[in-house]
């Protein structure tokens, strides 16, 4: 993205040129990365941006073709959440982040594929079918922001926005060999993000390099009075020089290297940690005793909130309405039976159960308490280290429908990414190697809340000394 911005300024290529190239490539896209493409809008925005570009311009977003995950609202452009229930929904408003990007002159290419309502980690649950991994078309790009990750990796946009509730930015970033940031909860406005689990959802940037991620993060972060959970504090621009790793304490949780971790991932992540050690970082073993409950806590809190957040899709005011309903209850049932896919229904059921009278204390309340314990684990850990480091996922990208019938195993793959959502801390996934099959592997870094500068600084330092993020997949538009 920064390279492209430089080329814009040098006059080597215009925003319209690159946008047209991308639009053409999307037409032959075997990845199913996009749900909606806005050809006219993108060309117009690119033309307009091109006229504004000057040699000395210091706005790296101007004319930059970006893709938006389809659960982030875009004015006059369909926002479907990859669900039948919203397949006809066109918002009358932009999400706060989209408004910011448009103001900076970014070119919105279109809306990317995802798991329905961001519930999933493969994009299999999308109503338009799964996206594919550009490194191997028989593998999943991950999810739920799989369309964004695939599009970035394949060059079908310069960068993209995703959303991350339990790893939905970081896991697909790691599967597709790109860099993705789940920012601190409250640092990026959720206004206009169609809610899955409000206390966990966070919009974040996905791009090829940590520098690009930093630039996009700077563009979207900041206080927004329209989101009550947005934190009102000073937000400084991220330095793009890279963090001096001398003496930086990296905490390695034992629990992140246990059962279920593939040897390829373990090897690549340990090599990645070794790079930091060479740069002068101190490696410290840390203990996060309660994160073993993370997945269980997550699937109670997230489904409980989802069961309530998705109640508004009732066929009354917008979106799909069930057909031959003879009364109100019929209409509700028909609408929701036709409107939601299997995974969404499963989670609504789980969440409804967890909140129901007689079970609330046992499930939701208990989960909230354990969540507090996980937060305390992190507070203690950050007393002794500056960054927590480990794998992003236990395994690299797997076959397209490999785990479609085994939701529990699929849920358990979120084990490393979930804690950052439960605790609200920022987490970054950077490419750190490849499996024997040639699939990318990601390494996750977590820092205390609002310490994105340290996280991105470390990511930049790592990428200045490695080349994994510069590798291009088999299917690549360029």
């Amino acid at each position: 993205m920064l390279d492209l911005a430089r080329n814009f300024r040098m006059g080597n290529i215009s925003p319209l040129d690159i946008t047209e190239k991308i639009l053409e490539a999307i037409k032959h896209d075997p990845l199913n990365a996009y749900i909606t493409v806005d050809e006219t809008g993108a060309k117009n925005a690119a033309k307009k941006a091109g006229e504004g570009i000057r040699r000395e311009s210091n706005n790296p977003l101007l004319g930059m073709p970006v893709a938006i995950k389809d659960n982030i609202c875009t004015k006059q452009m369909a926002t479907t959440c990859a669900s039948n229930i919203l397949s006809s929904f066109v918002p009358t408003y932009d999400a706060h982040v989209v408004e910011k990007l448009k103001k900076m002159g970014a070119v919105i290419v279109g809306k990317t594929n995802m798991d329905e309502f961001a519930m999933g980690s493969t994009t299999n649950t999308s109503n338009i079918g799964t996206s594919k991994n550009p490194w191997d078309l028989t593998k999943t790009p991950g999810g739920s922001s799989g369309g964004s990750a695939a599009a970035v990796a394949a060059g079908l946009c310069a960068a993209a926005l995703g959303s991350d509730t339990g790893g939905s930015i970081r896991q697909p970033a790691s599967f597709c060999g790109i860099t993705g940031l789940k920012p601190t909860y409250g640092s990026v406005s959720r206004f206009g993000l169609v809610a899955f689990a409000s206390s966990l959802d966070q919009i974040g940037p996905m791009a090829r390099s940590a520098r690009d991620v930093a630039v996009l993060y700077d563009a979207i972060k900041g206080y927004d009075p329209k989101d009550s959970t947005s934190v009102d504090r000073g937000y400084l621009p991220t330095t793009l020089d890279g963090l001096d790793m001398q003496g930086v304490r990296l905490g390695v949780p034992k629990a992140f290297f246990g059962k279920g971790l593939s040897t390829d991932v373990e090897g690549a992540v340990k090599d990645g940690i070794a790079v930091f050690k060479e740069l002068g970082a101190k490696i410290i073993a840390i203990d996060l005793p309660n994160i073993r409950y993370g997945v269980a806590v997550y699937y109670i809190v997230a489904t409980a909130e989802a069961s309530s957040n998705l109640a508004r899709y009732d066929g009354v005011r917008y979106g799909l309405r069930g057909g031959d309903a003879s009364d109100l209850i019929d209409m509700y049932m028909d609408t929701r039976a036709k409107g939601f896919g299997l995974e969404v229904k499963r989670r609504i059921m789980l969440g409804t159960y967890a909140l129901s009278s007689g079970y609330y204390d046992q499930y939701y309340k208990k989960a909230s308490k354990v969540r507090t314990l996980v937060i305390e684990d992190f507070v203690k850990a950050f007393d002794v280290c500056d960054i927590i480091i480990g794998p992003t996922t236990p395994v690299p990208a797997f076959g397209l429908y490999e785990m479609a019938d085994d939701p529990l195993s699929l849920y358990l793959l979120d084990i490393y990414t979930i804690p950052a959502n439960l605790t609200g801390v920022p987490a970054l996934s950077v490419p750190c190697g490849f499996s024997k099959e040639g699939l990318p592997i990601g390494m996750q870094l977590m820092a205390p809340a609002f310490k994105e500068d340290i996280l991105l600084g470390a990511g930049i330092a790592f990428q200045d000394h490695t080349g994994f993020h510069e590798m291009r997949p088999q299917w690549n538009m360029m």
Partner: protein
Amino acid sequence: MEYDVIIGLEVHAQLLTETKIFCSCPTTFGDEPNTNTCPVCIGMPGILPVLNKKIVDFGIKLGIATHCKIAKTNIFARKNYFYPDLPKGYQITQYESPLCEHGFLDIDTNGGGKRIGITRIHMEEDAGKLIHDLKGHRSFIDFNRAGVPLLEIVSEPDMRSTDEADAYLRELRQLLVYLEICDGNMEQGSFRCDANISVRPKGSAFFGVRTELKNMNSFRNVHRALSYEIKRHIDVLESGREVTQQTMLWDEAANATRSMRTKEESHDYRYFPEPDLVPVMVDNAWIGKIRKTLPEMPRERRKRFEDVYGLPGYDADILTQSRDVADYFENCVSLLDSPKEISNWIMTEVLRVLKEGAADIKALKVTPKMLTSMIRLIDDGAISGKMAKDVFNEMAKTGKSPGEIVKDSGLKQISDEEHLKSLAKAILEDHKKEVESYKKGKTQLIGFFVGQLMKATKGKANPELTNKIIKEILEE
């Protein structure tokens, strides 16, 4: 058998804020359907609520006035259920930690005063309104009301009769109006009441099975519905059956209550903390700031009007019904120390004019200064009480001062004794027969003579003075 009646009330008061609780749509009543709506209050995807802090101000106000403990940490909760008038599929309300708890409200009953416990007061949003097309089997939804702020005020089951329930409701309503929190309009639904009722054999320590009673949209209906339901409970028990725990609807047309849903059919609301809103922290400074803005409570003011101004309870009660009327009264008293006389004028003429014009007392043309100078004219004998009524009406119509009106219309009373004496003599001269009858003992004829003199002066003669002078002449 004799029975104890146990009543607890839940009141929903719509707040007089200009905008809704989580968005900036206006709260005006009676506008074209769905004109006061936005993506927030109709529950569009991706939209988030932002709390209007005014609602907390109002809640604290009522909490202080009802002697409640104000919660320092306020958490909103979602109450989940499906209904077409509920845009998000959940109502944002408070559940585990209401804004106010453990207060009370004193009421007057036939047997003297009584203290009714306030269990809790919490903040929440209203739902929209369904309008059914009876012919076409269609229903319409008006979301103008969706997101209008409410305070829910839950009482302890402390009321023991419909009269006590009525007194509590009236006291609470007056308090809300006094605090300028709610307009108290039951018919328009800005002051709504549900009741929990049970009966038990007199003296029993246990509560009977209760029913909840809804849809009572006037004081009269509350009274009728409660009476009906109490009788129904007693009849059920007398016949040896048991009361079923259920929610009842008051059917005004049928003059009866009917079952809406039983306990088994009741919703599981699946309450949980609202993740889209952060807790509202209320510190002592906030409470102190609100406390300073509180007016004197109607009950205290009523008592003070009796003690300090020596007004009868009836007068004090009427004058303190509205804060503005009570202020008007006190403004008058500060200008003229005749509380009872002022009270009489306000209770009759002032309130009549207000009622006729449905106007606000603040907009009344008769200012306290004008009213009191008019009363002074009566006291000085410049005008009679009867003339004063005309003067008052003229003031209310034109806004002219009483002095001006008296001068312009020649209303001024004749109080010149010599002048009245000569007039009286002339009249008695003209009515010799009647004078004779009078002297024979038909003394009630004095009224006739005074009347004749009044007629001669077109009512301007000072009646007391005239009376006195005629008597003196006749007795000479």
